């Protein structure tokens, strides 16, 4: 059972490494989004500091979300997904593997990068740590929920945009608790409560989402 | 010469961290880059030479 998960992770990671441009590009998208806002909003430092948690979390969310359409699309297009569905292992486990691999190449690097961008917004050091932590905790839930959306929109033309439509509303709780944690830390309250809610979302998401996504995939293949 | 001592020089009138941070990273980058380029050049030469030798051998022994 764990072997099938780890094989899937290994394969997906290898594919991801085969095109390092992808990984880099998710990160740069994050950087660019985080840099667009100040340009649109204007350069006042105080205003920007207030905005920072929201902007960075929205950026992380959009960056994750951008890489979702390809979670299953490649496998679908070239027929691999059919083969996976026909393999004698539970499809849910393979989806779990794919979700974990997706997190490793999106959520994890985003969490590492976020504090650097936080500096641009002049966030205090404490808040930077909380920012990284909250993104680390929250992104697995994003990958999991995203997998459901990616499964449901698979093979639909314009799936990419439809996908955002389905997934972003489900991302809102993660966004609220995530940005909330950083806000709380900036304003001197402890971020603990928010972080534990985030952790709960992630555990729930990872336990439940792969199976829902697997069901969606089976429908897409019919 | 307006530095009274070496530690004065390092301190840079209180801005040592900034000045040395700037010069240090620049120096580091300008050492690292050529080093990487040279290393890659060597690696490429070796790899290509190996490949070409293998090809030459294949051609000689049909």
């Amino acid at each position: 059972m764990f072997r099938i998960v780890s094989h899937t992770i290994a394969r997906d990671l290898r594919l991801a490494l085969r095109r390092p441009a992808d990984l880099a590009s998710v990160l740069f998208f994050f950087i660019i989004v985080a840099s667009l806002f100040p340009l649109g909003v204007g350069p006042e430092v105080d205003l920007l500091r207030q905005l920072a948690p929201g902007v960075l979390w929205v950026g992380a969310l959009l960056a994750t979300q951008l890489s979702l359409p390809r979670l299953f699309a490649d496998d679908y297009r070239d027929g691999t997904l059919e083969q996976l569905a026909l393999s004698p292992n539970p499809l849910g486990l393979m989806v779990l593997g794919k979700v974990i691999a997706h997190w490793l190449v999106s959520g994890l690097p985003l969490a590492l990068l976020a504090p650097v961008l936080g500096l641009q917004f002049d966030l205090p050091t404490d808040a930077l740590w909380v920012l990284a932590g909250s993104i680390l905790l929250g992104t697995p839930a994003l990958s999991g929920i995203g997998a459901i959306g990616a499964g449901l929109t698979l093979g639909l033309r314009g799936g990419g945009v439809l996908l955002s439509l389905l997934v972003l509303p489900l991302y809102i709780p993660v966004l609220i608790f995530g940005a909330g944690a950083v806000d709380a830390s900036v304003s001197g309250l402890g971020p603990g409560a928010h972080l534990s809610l985030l952790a709960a979302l992630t555990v729930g998401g990872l336990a439940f989402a792969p199976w829902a996504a697997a069901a969606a995939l089976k429908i897409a293949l019919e | 010469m307006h530095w009274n001592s070496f530690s004065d020089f390092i301190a840079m009138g209180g801005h040592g961290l900034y000045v040395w941070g700037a010069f240090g990273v620049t120096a580091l980058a300008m050492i690292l880059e050529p080093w990487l380029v040279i290393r890659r050049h060597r690696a490429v030469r070796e790899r290509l030479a190996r490949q070409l030798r293998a090809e030459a051998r294949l051609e000689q022994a049909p």
Partner: protein
Amino acid sequence: MRMIHWFKFSAPSTFYPLAGKLIPWFWALFAGFALAGLWISFFVAPTDFQQGEGYRIIFIHVGASWMSMFIYLVMAFWAGMGLAFNTRLSGMMAQALAPTGALFAFISLWTGALWGKPMWGTWWVWDARLTSELILLFLYIGFIALTRAIDDSRRSDKAGAILALVGVVNIPIIYFSVKWWNTLHQGASVSLTRAPAMASIMLWGMLFSAFAMWMYAVAVALMRVRTIILERERHTDWVRELLLDRS
């Protein structure tokens, strides 16, 4: 006649050894300029009465900023030559320059940030010049990412060339941003038309370090282009001879 010479040297097989001979000279020039520049920056230039010793960052900051823009222009020039005349070497030159240009853009940002903290009290402001320099870094990275993502060398040269040419519009924006927008960042203090606004010794320091960086960029780009030439021309007879003879 000119044209013939030009095409002769733009043949990779003649350029490769030529570059090999030139590289040490550029390193030597680099060393000379760098020593002079460093000497001026630390031992000749006086303490600034306003900014204290912190201003010594200027000696790398300005040079790196200039080079980051200049290298982009050169890169775009080569890219355009490649598109127009279909010379193989041009694309290789463009690709060899990009990482060095990105490095200087990064150094400009880094030193600027380290200067900004003591001077303006913040690492970063969203000021037009700073922002456009950041965009320049993104353009370099985009160019590198694009050319790496295409593994057929001919295609990657052409695609990169289009991107480089499109991105050229950013350079005047960076340069004139201080004029167009009223910003925190310093205006141009070196100009050909009016007398330098700063102490001439500082100007010399900046010029020396900028020349050092220029020589450095040429040397590194030549080294890199030699690697690229070898990789791309590995099936030609001259590379075969070159590699099999020596090793």
